[in-house]
């Protein structure tokens, strides 16, 4: 017996007698002797609750989190404020502990929440069909590509902007070996997807054109214009979006997107060092029977009461097996619920206001940071909530020095964009105050100067940047 099990010695005796064996050992006889471990696992002994807490609190304390640092890290996950009601509700046992609502009569809470989530995501993206969610952002891009193969009767070529999150492109590449598909990347020009190159790249074998908006460099793309090439060639237009910008940016459904998807973390989810969060996945009516994952649908019970069920299950692995539209089973229901609550809390006006706040603070940050000697803008395309800079000093050293001052200055672009070795992505949320942005600017100046020596002298007199 541990603290979580209840079989007392007396229980065990009664149970073994009922089974008709003398020991639990006998039940394990079906495991051939050579395969029995025959020794304790080489793991520490169990610990008391307080000790486990202390041990892991100690490890947690060795991380520099956003409670401790002022963080301008983004790159797909953002330090938004998660309202207290999100935790309060998602921690309720009734939402936390059941599994997928296979028995709808006793799962109306979860099913209705899914239905509400779908409605909210459909509203955000301006696409009529939303699923109940996938694992997270990048793998959702790969899932869209998989769908596109089927929707284009087997085309196996994807044209992808380099403005799409590097993790998404890497994940797509991984999956594509399974799909037997090829990927063509289209470069960026002035922070934006090169429209001409894109138009050239799309052909009649192209299953999907994949864009991101705002793109990884923070720039707001003209999705509709870029998407024309897809339309012309009968390819799907797939757009990854940052949901937090959809209060102000034109939604993908109005730009011709067939599929809009994205990383859901900014909506009510913790940073959690990268997960769990969720991926949202929306599409046109035409695609509804090709969609991956759960979809809640409305119906009635035998007495005529409104109710909700898992709809269109014939798409899914547990029914269709190898013919399923996707292999996903356990997804991210609780994370999607968090998003739904967060969106209800923000509400129609609050969501728009938040989008505006991000745009304005980001504009301020861009202007302010561009005045710092040794800093220039990586591009001057319009931005919504994240901006890209170039620093005239070694990136690693600059970030370390900022960290010493309690600031996580941003995401270094170098690893994933060798062409922007000196690039820094700076993210803004409603938690990043004007004062914190000013602090970053004031920290960056001396830090760059110290690291770059007199390199910066000649740029010290330049005027505020921007468009």
């Amino acid at each position, binding site marked *: 017996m541990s603290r979580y099990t209840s079989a007392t010695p007396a229980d065990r005796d009664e149970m073994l007698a009922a089974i008709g064996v003398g020991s639990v050992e006998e039940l394990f006889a079906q495991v051939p002797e050579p395969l029995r471990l025959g020794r304790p696992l080489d793991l520490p002994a169990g610990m008391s609750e307080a000790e486990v807490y202390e041990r*892991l609190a100690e490890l947690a304390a060795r991380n520099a989190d956003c409670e401790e640092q002022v963080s301008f890290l983004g790159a797909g996950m953002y330090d938004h404020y998660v309202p207290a009601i999100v935790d309060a509700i998602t921690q309720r046992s009734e939402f936390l502990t059941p599994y997928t609502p296979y028995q709808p009569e006793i799962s109306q809470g979860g099913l209705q929440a899914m239905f509400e989530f779908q409605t909210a995501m459909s509203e955000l993206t301006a696409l009529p069909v939303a699923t109940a969610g996938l694992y997270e952002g990048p793998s959702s891009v790969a899932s869209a590509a998989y769908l596109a193969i089927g929707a284009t009767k087997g085309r196996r070529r994807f044209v992808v902007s380099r403005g799409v999150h590097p993790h998404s492109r890497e994940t797509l590449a991984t999956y594509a070996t399974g799909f037997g598909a090829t990927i063509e990347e289209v470069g960026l020009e002035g922070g934006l997807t090169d429209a001409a190159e894109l138009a050239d790249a799309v052909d009649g074998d192209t299953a999907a054109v994949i864009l991101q908006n705002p793109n990884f460099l923070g720039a707001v793309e003209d999705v509709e214009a870029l998407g024309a090439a897809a339309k012309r060639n009968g390819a799907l237009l797939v757009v990854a979006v940052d949901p937090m910008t959809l*209060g102000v940016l034109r939604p993908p459904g109005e730009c011709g997107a067939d599929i809009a998807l994205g990383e859901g973390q900014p909506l009510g989810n913790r940073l*959690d060092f990268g997960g769990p969060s969720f991926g949202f996945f929306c599409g046109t009516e035409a695609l509804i029977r090709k969609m991956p994952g759960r979809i809640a649908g409305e119906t009635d019970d035998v007495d005529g009461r409104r109710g909700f069920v898992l709809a269109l299950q014939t798409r899914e692995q547990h029914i269709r097996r190898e013919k399923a539209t996707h292999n996903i089973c356990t997804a991210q229901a609780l994370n999607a619920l968090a998003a739904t609550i967060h969106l209800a809390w923000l509400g129609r006006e609050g969501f728009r206001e938040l989008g505006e706040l991000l745009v304005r603070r980001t504009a301020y940050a861009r202007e302010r940071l561009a005045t710092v000697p040794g800093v220039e803008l990586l591009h001057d395309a319009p931005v919504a909530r994240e901006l890209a800079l170039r620093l005239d000093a070694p990136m690693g050293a600059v970030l370390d020095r900022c960290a010493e001052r309690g600031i996580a200055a941003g995401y270094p672009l170098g690893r994933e964009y060798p062409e922007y070795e000196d690039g820094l992505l700076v993210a803004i949320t409603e938690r990043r105050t004007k004062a914190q942005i000013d602090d970053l600017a004031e920290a960056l100046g001396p830090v760059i100067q110290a690291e770059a020596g007199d390199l910066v002298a000649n740029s010290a007199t330049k005027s505020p940047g921007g468009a």
Partner: protein
Amino acid sequence: MLAETPMQRERAETIFEKSKPGRRAAVLPEAEVPEPTLEELIPAKLLRSEPPRLPEIAEPEIVRHYNRLSRRNFDLDSGFYPLGSCTMKHNPRLNERIAALPGHARLHPAQDPKRAQGALELMWLLQRSLAEICGLPHVSLQPSAGSHGELGGLLLTRAFHADRGEARHKVLAPDTSHGTNPASVTMAGYEIVKVATDERGGVEMDDLRAKVDDDVACLMLTNPNTLGLFDENIAEIAGLIHQVGGTLYYDGANLNAVMGQSRPGDMGFDIVHVNLHKSFSQPHGGGGPGAGPIAVSDRIEPFLPRPQVVRRESGNGSGPHFDLDHERPKSIGRLRGFQGNFGVFVRSYAYILSLGADGLAEASETAVLNANYLKARLAGGRAGTHLPIAFDRHCMHEFVLSGKPMKKELGVATLDLAKRLLDFGFHPPTVYFPLLVEEALMVEPTETETKESLDAFAEAIEQILAEAEADPEKAKSAPYTTPVRRLDEVKATRRPVVRQSLGG
């Protein structure tokens, strides 16, 4: 007498329907910065004309809405939930507390590894723990769930063969396999080949032998399998597959039966996924989140996803440090963004620390004891007649009954029995899976249930069957007391309504 229960009386209304223009819950901070119009910052054609029609509602009513909604769910913290294959074991709140620490919950995934040493150490420790439990030396935590792990495992297999200049096309899996197995096979670009089940519930060896050839990339197996039975021929099976150069994939959904008892690696498996939301107590969340780390053998290791958490000895004698290794030239690449479902890792590692070596072994023992006890209880009485066990031998952590006689003799289908169980306050077992068993009922009590709960469940089944003998309609029209009664699933699929209409 009551016409309806209080919950039945309360008709479903979505949060969108409770909206009223002008209401709000959120108050945002002041901008503090200049406030030009948006058009001055972003071209008008890229801007949205109307905000999305999110609900307008103040905080108190949001809270009430979701609180009330929550009570329309049955949950593990309220009652017995023997949903076979899903390992609905107790979810310790300790793990939630630890996951919520700001050092975990507010840690940005792109934090420099130098400043995320605690998180990386935790991941490394979890990798080591799962490696030991699985008996395989290397672990990637990246996959987000079991099915994601399956896909990853198959892509590893593909990379492994490609590295040897081979291109194979077939993946074998028993007819009892979970739906995600064949679905993953298709996504990974392979063709699925079903293997039959023998009369003891294991892989039919002759069928397997007939199907094994050098176009077989992999055999996917669950062991104990979805019948809850340990495949006694596993060593021979492994030999057959390895002989033709295939990999052996272990679907770890049933690991809860063998923790500290027997290890997939020792059985000959090359790749194992572990559902942290099953054996390792991550709450199921109404359908996730979970995580599906994969453990692999040395020969598969080079292909593991990127980045990998590694421990490095510091040259300067300051002790080891932890890092993310991106330099993995043979890697299949990423399966997702960032480092995986870290919040799940925290909970599962807390669980492993809590139970320790002995506790994990005891958990599996008790899971097997509970399953066999409940099986024995259901072998007697009316269940024995109407709901016989599909394969009559000791089971591991779960077992499968067949409702075929019940359906034939009483006209009561497994579905009806399941629905009637709802009225008794139980979550029904998994139904109609595995497909092999007609009118299947798959029962997994888990180790955290009391004998009293098992007894009560057995008594409820007995009572329902007695009632069905007298009047089968009782079950066929069930449930009666749930917030809604039987729902029209056909309608939902024929004319799908998948979002709230808001007019306009």
